[in-house]
């Protein structure tokens, strides 16, 4: 080392005071391998050191919750002795540098989280955010990320059923690539910290892929710092995925669990062997003797710190009683996977790592896992959030309403994302009742009448203008998207995408978002079962909008009563449930037609929102609804048109309102749903709405090839479908 070089701990992402803390814990200077272990485990990505203090305020308990935060994934009771296991994570930084592998390995990682709980993965959803497609680099990122998600997800037999794709300038430098996985397990077979009891002398068995030099520093270098012009050099920190190995890993792991051969199971993700071994030992209340020479390596000459922190993909760590080792080896061999006994559980809490018969590390397991730094970072509200004072709602508007509708419908946020989701296998496993393009994906529980309803939602534009309100809207919209199918929202996971937490304004955005999420989750009775924090999504002075993405899981007791999004027939009455207020702040119309991201986001009354969900669930149970579609981006105009395009049935409606026509059509007031109702069920619907205090206004009826907004304009479903379907392919330069 030259004298001018940074000290090792800083190169590993550790601050000077963190280094001091390690010295105090050990009572000596740390060895290099030990520093590498702390560097990985105390990284923002692994330790949640800046966010923990805020995350603790979220509601995490509820009648349905079986497993809350702190495990590999959360779990809720879905009846019949079954548990839905789910979690969301980001892989934004790797995807910004190498979109295909970054997105692919993100899928692999979240799937292993679900498998390590003993659940079979049954659904994937991918919320994605990119910069405008007018920029070539953003097109390259979109194409690469989508190909990576498909290339991996399509090869492992887990259907990709939803997610969302949004576009905004702040994501040009920092695309957001989140992924949610949902799995199913028998509730009694869930693998959690308390469900299995490891013994002293039990073995830690590493199985799956070999360990190489890929992904070293993934959590500390890539995920826990901002990207800059030298980030391209971080490409070796991006892992490479092998979905075939993942598929074998899924099958072998689930077989090991069902045969009762394991005392513990942990996936290898961020911080590799270090994380898996230390968490397993700490949870067991034991220590471990780790022999790095037993690890099967991809290449010769790897150093201890490389083996310890490699993020090579498709590996799992099982805790196995010595008497079961042969059987475990047999199952793995049948699936073509090799095993290696790399450690043994020992009494006490110490991890002892040997390499080439030398001891290279001796650290307390809990010091890595539970005793990491925790910061209450300074927060500072901006004097004024740019644009909030310039509300576009009351600006005079002279434009053409039909042209405005065309513009909003063809805007990338609103236009059909079929180009994306046709590249995903949404059918495998044979349970997909509704996939992408529906407000919520609906996935049947095999062998039952029940189905899960799944939605992911982020409201970046609202969050930019008011982070607290933005987070509340994200929760409310995710729950609404589940409720429109007739399903009951149960619980959420999340991925919290933010800028650099060391900047007080970002930390303020984060704290405000958590506050909003907390209020909404409490009001809607959807506790938080876990999630992920993705900080440092900024470059130079450009941070992404504060964007908590919510992953909602709901349950539909009888899938035959599922309510579709689109108008299924002619001759239905069309109703608006909920009320429209003059709220164009932060709307799609304001951005696309007026060219501003400004104003106050729509207000949100969580009691009204809850009443609407109750009404939707009850109306579905009574089979009163022929269709139901959430009003969000583009307001009631877009909700109606999407329901018409999806069902190939036009409509004639009268938007009776005291508001100016453009406000009535495009306001994004919350807590509204457009429903189609058979005329003979109209009365029952109106009575139900009255009883629950939900405003219900009859707008018109469905039928014919035309879309008629009485007194405003009219056109055809065909013309609007053409705009909706072709906007994204056109932006990508494809013949349509």
């Amino acid at each position: 080392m030259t004298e001018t070089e940074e000290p090792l701990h800083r190169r590993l992402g550790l601050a000077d005071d963190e280094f001091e803390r390690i010295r105090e814990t050990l009572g000596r200077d740390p060895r290099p391998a030990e520093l590498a272990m702390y560097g990985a485990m105390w990284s923002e990505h692994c330790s949640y050191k800046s966010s923990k203090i805020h995350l603790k305020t979220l509601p995490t308990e509820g009648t349905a919750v079986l497993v809350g935060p702190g495990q590999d994934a959360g779990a809720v009771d879905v009846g019949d002795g079954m548990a839905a296991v789910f979690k969301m994570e980001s892989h934004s930084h790797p995807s910004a540098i190498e979109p295909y592998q970054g997105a692919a390995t993100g899928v692999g990682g979240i799937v292993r989280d679900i498998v390590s709980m003993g659940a079979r993965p049954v659904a994937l959803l991918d919320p994605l955010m990119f910069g405008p497609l007018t920029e070539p680099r953003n097109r390259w990122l979109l194409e690469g990320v989508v190909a990576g998600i498909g290339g991996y997800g399509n090869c492992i037999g887990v259907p990709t059923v939803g997610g969302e794709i949004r576009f905004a300038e702040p994501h040009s430098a920092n695309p957001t690539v989140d992924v949610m996985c949902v799995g199913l397990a028998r509730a009694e077979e869930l693998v959690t910290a308390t469900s299995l009891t490891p013994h002293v002398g039990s073995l830690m068995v590493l199985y799956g892929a070999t360990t190489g030099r890929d992904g070293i520093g993934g959590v500390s270098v890539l995920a826990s710092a901002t990207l800059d012009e030298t980030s391209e050099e971080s490409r070796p920190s991006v892992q490479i995925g092998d979905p075939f190995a993942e598929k074998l890993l899924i099958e072998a792991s689930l077989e090991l669990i069902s045969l009762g051969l394991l005392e513990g199971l942990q996936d290898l993700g961020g911080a590799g062997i270090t994380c898996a071994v230390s968490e397993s030992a700490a949870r067991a209340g034991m220590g471990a003797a780790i022999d790095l020479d037993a690890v099967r390596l991809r290449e010769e000459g790897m150093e201890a710190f490389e083996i310890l922190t490699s993020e090579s993909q498709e590996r799992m760590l099982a805790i196995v009683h010595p008497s079961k080792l042969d059987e475990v080896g047999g199952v793995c061999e049948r699936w073509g996977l090799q095993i290696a006994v790399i450690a043994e559980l020992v009494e006490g809490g110490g991890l002892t790592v040997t390499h080439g018969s030398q001891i290279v590390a001796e650290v307390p397991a809990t010091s890595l896992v539970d005793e990491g730094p925790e910061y209450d970072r300074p927060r500072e509200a901006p004097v004024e959030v740019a644009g909030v004072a310039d509300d576009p709602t009351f600006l005079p508007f002279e434009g053409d309403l039909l042209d405005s509708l065309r513009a909003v419908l063809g805007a990338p946020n609103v236009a059909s994302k079929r180009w994306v989701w046709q590249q995903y296998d949404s059918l495998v496993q044979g349970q997909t009742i509704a996939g992408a393009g529906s407000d919520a994906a609906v996935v049947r529980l095999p062998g039952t009448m029940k189905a899960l309803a799944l939605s992911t939602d982020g409201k970046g534009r609202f969050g930019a203008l008011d982070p607290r309100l933005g987070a509340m809207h994200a929760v409310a919209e995710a729950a609404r998207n589940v409720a429109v199918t007739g399903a009951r929202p149960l619980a959420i996971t999340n991925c919290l995408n933010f800028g650099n937490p060391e900047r007080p304004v970002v930390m303020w955005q984060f704290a405000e978002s958590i506050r909003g999420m907390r209020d909404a989750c409490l009001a809607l009775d959807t506790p938080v079962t876990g999630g992920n924090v993705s900080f440092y999504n900024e470059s130079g002075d450009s941070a992404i909008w504060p964007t908590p993405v919510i992953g909602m899981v709901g349950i539909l007791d009888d899938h035959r009563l599922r309510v579709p999004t689109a108008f299924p027939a002619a001759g239905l009455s069309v109703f608006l449930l909920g009320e429209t207020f003059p709220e164009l702040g932060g709307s799609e119309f304001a951005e696309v037609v007026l060219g501003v991201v400004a104003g106050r986001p729509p207000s949100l009354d969580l009691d009204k929102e809850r009443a609407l969900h109750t009404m939707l669930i009850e109306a579905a149970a009574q089979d009163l609804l022929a269709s139901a579609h959430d009003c969000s981006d583009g307001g009631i105009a877009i909700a109606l048109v999407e329901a018409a395009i999806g069902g190939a049935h036009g409509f004639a409606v009268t938007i009776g309102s005291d508001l100016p026509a453009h406000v009535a059509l495009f306001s994004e007031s919350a807590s509204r749903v457009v429903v189609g109702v058979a005329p003979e069920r109209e009365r029952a619907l109106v009575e139900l709405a009255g009883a629950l205090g939900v405003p219900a206004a009859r707008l018109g009826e469905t039928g014919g090839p035309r879309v008629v907004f009485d007194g405003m304009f009219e056109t055809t479903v065909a013309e609007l479908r053409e705009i909706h379907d072709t906007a994204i392919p056109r932006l990508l330069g494809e013949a349509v």
Partner: protein
Amino acid sequence: MSEMTISTPRVGVITFPGSLDDGDALRAIEIMGGEGVALWHADHDLRGVDAVVLPGGFSYGDYLRCGAIAGHAPILDEVRAFADRGGPVLGICNGFQILCEAGLLPGALIRNASLRFICRDVFLRVESSQTPVTGELVPGEVIEIPIKHGEGQYVATSEQLRAIEDEGLVVFRYADRTGEVGEGSNPNGSLDAIAGVRNEAGNVVGLMPHPEHAVDPDVGPTGGQPLFAALLASALAGARA
């Protein structure tokens, strides 16, 4: 064998490492009234089944050519012998690719013309009823079934193609809902819009679309039902023979 056991045809579904739609194929067989029998790639045993399905997926990761390694799997020896005896064999998607690689069907599958994976419902025009899966259909009939593949573009040498067409080995072509074949309804650039072919004897069929994902009306179209009904009927006929 007792007379009772023969009323339910037994259809085997081979699981290769990387098979994905094996469970779906077994479920489709059960939904249509057959008995699904799970078979394992490394075994030299078809467990006495009356028909064999090679399911979709990415066998062995498909890192070489699709289906290339599976074409040499131990169980393929048994499949070949079963096919030589006239037993009904159906390859779906990756199973079709495997049968082509194993030389049991003519032609090959390469990357889609768009170079992208495509998952969506398509219409197929039935071209031949002389197979174990089309006995209940008539040529010209149109069925709706999903595709989901990245390498489904059917290709063959010009002599091969001529022979395939002359001998009537094409079983399905991509078409529109009226049965019209054209560029707009060919999702992957396949030669002559070929979606499925059979061998000369007619007992081995491969197709890229997924009939096993088209039997359950709750989750998609039902165009796969007549294919599985016919497969079960021919399995039963073989079992009685």
